[in-house]
């Protein structure tokens, strides 16, 4: 399926004779660009005529760095790509390395990874809901209140991670062949208690957002992405599912423990901001259900299938290439590794990360024209972009 190509430059002359247009640089220093992101907006009054996104302000050269560091050192480095869901980055990169090196992951480690992934999805979607409300309601009003509520509950999930790994952000808990930290005693009760709180409070957030009339009028019919456009641009995750495409790697290409714990995939058909919001809110409920099932059914056994990391050059792969895609809160996070880098094969020759947000952002030039400045913020927020992941 081929999608129409956007023009790369704003040609002011093209719009001559159509009235006075104003060029606004929306970002990189702007409260609602979710980090540092710039959109060149050509406005006719308040209506967007043309929009050109400019990513790259948070580029850190992680993929180049991966050619210098060894397999064992890369786990903690990629934590910072998707900084809202760091756990999923580790999971993706180690799943790729394990496939490359042919390492088997024990069952308990797979279940633990899946449990973390689902908890991470709850935490990530909570933060999305908070920032989306902030986009719609402002930092000095109802938006800020929802934002703080969401953060309050997100912190509870981070507390759970801290309990296992000792960190709230740089977990570095995944390792080659499994996990580094085992679950502490009495962890299941803590998970259930936290999920009870979050499940109860989710209803409150819906009263403030998705079932509120103001939220509804601000998002319904705004930023509609058709399923053709979504597929043509390679959108994945909740954005794709909101456009009516029933696609979820957790169900369609099961990894971790998803073959044993089936996932109900949430879809919507309208493809607008409201649909994306509803998909994410329902996914939170679904993830809570999955996390409960995972912690209840957690098998006993070893947590690491390979020798624990002792030296940088411990794992070597001279040749081969693999691609592994996992379903992060934002969509398909792909890791493509070509083996045979420096230090006699202890590092990747090339590492390519396919971030879901980067592809989600590519939809902006298509959907923004015709919308108002207020909608630009809503549409950008509904795509849930994480700039660390977009720019890497």
């Amino acid at each position: 399926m081929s999608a129409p190509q956007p023009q790369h430059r704003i040609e002011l002359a093209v719009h001559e004779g159509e009235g006075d247009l104003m060029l606004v640089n929306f970002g990189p220093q702007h409260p609602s660009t979710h980090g540092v992101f710039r959109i060149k907006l050509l406005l006719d009054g308040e209506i967007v005529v043309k929009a050109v996104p400019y990513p790259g302000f948070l580029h850190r050269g992680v993929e180049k760095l991966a050619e210098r560091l060894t397999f064992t050192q890369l786990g903690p480095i990629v934590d910072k790509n998707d900084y809202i869901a760091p756990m999923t980055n580790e999971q993706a990169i180690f799943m790729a390395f394990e496939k490359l090196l042919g390492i088997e992951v024990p069952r308990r480690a797979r279940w633990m990874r899946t449990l973390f992934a689902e908890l991470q999805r709850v935490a990530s979607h909570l933060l999305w809901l908070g920032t989306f409300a902030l986009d719609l309601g402002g930092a000095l009003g109802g938006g800020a209140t929802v934002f703080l509520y969401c953060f309050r509950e997100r912190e509870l999930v981070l507390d759970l991670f801290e309990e296992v790994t000792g960190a709230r952000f740089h977990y570095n808990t995944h390792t080659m062949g499994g996990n580094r930290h085992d679950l502490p005693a009495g962890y299941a009760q803590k998970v259930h208690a936290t999920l009870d709180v979050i499940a109860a409070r989710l209803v409150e957030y819906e009263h403030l957002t998705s079932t509120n009339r103001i939220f509804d009028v601000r998002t319904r019919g705004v930023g509609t992405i058709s399923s053709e456009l979504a597929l043509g641009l390679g959108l994945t995750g909740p954005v794709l599912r909101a456009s009516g495409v029933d696609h979820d790697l957790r169900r369609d290409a099961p990894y971790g423990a998803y073959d044993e714990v089936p996932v109900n995939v949430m879809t919507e058909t309208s493809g607008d901001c409201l649909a994306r919001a509803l998909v994410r809110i329902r996914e939170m409920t679904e993830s809570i259900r999955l996390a409960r099932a995972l912690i209840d059914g957690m098998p006993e056994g070893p947590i690491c299938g390979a020798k624990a990391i002792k030296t940088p050059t411990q794992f070597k792969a001279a040749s081969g290439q693999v691609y592994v895609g996992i379903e992060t809160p934002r969509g398909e996070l792909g890791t493509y590794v070509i083996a045979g880098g420096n230090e006699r094969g202890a590092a990747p020759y090339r590492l390519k990360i396919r971030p879901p947000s980067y592809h989600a952002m590519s939809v902006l030039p298509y959907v923004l024209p015709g919308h108002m400045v207020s909608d630009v913020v809503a549409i950008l927020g509904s795509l849930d972009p994480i700039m660390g992941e977009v720019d890497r």
Partner: protein
Amino acid sequence: MGYPLDTLRALGVTLKNLVRPPTTVEYPKVTRPRSERYRASFALLHDENNEELCIGCLACERICPSQVIAITAGPKIQSVTTGKKRGTATDFTLDLTACIFCELCVQVCPTDAIIMTRTQEDPGFSREDLVLTMDKLYKNEKDRPAAWGNATKLLGMQEQEAKKDE
């Protein structure tokens, strides 16, 4: 539902939260409880004979993904504890400004010499304040509570079942 009813329902939520106890704690006065494994800073340890455990093997310097550890290996000395020859480190610096707290240096240490602490460094006015010198690292052993992890425990956790199989 229409705007008035939705507004009332939303007001119900915020007013309910108005009477809930606040989540914020005033940090320097109150500290949030930290988990046992919480990792915040580093310390170098002594053994029971007050002998430095670090043998200057450079394992942590090599594994460090951010390359923030710099060690100068010293001369071999006679160990008081074991009576054998062992290495020493004359200098050990850990640059916290670039550290990502991944705990790999703790995991690879062959002598359990480096561990992480549960309280973080005090804020400072210069970047040099955040460079942990050998003195600061040995001072942290006394001043700051140790986190749960050291190399033996971390490796034991990861290889517990693997050992049983052998």
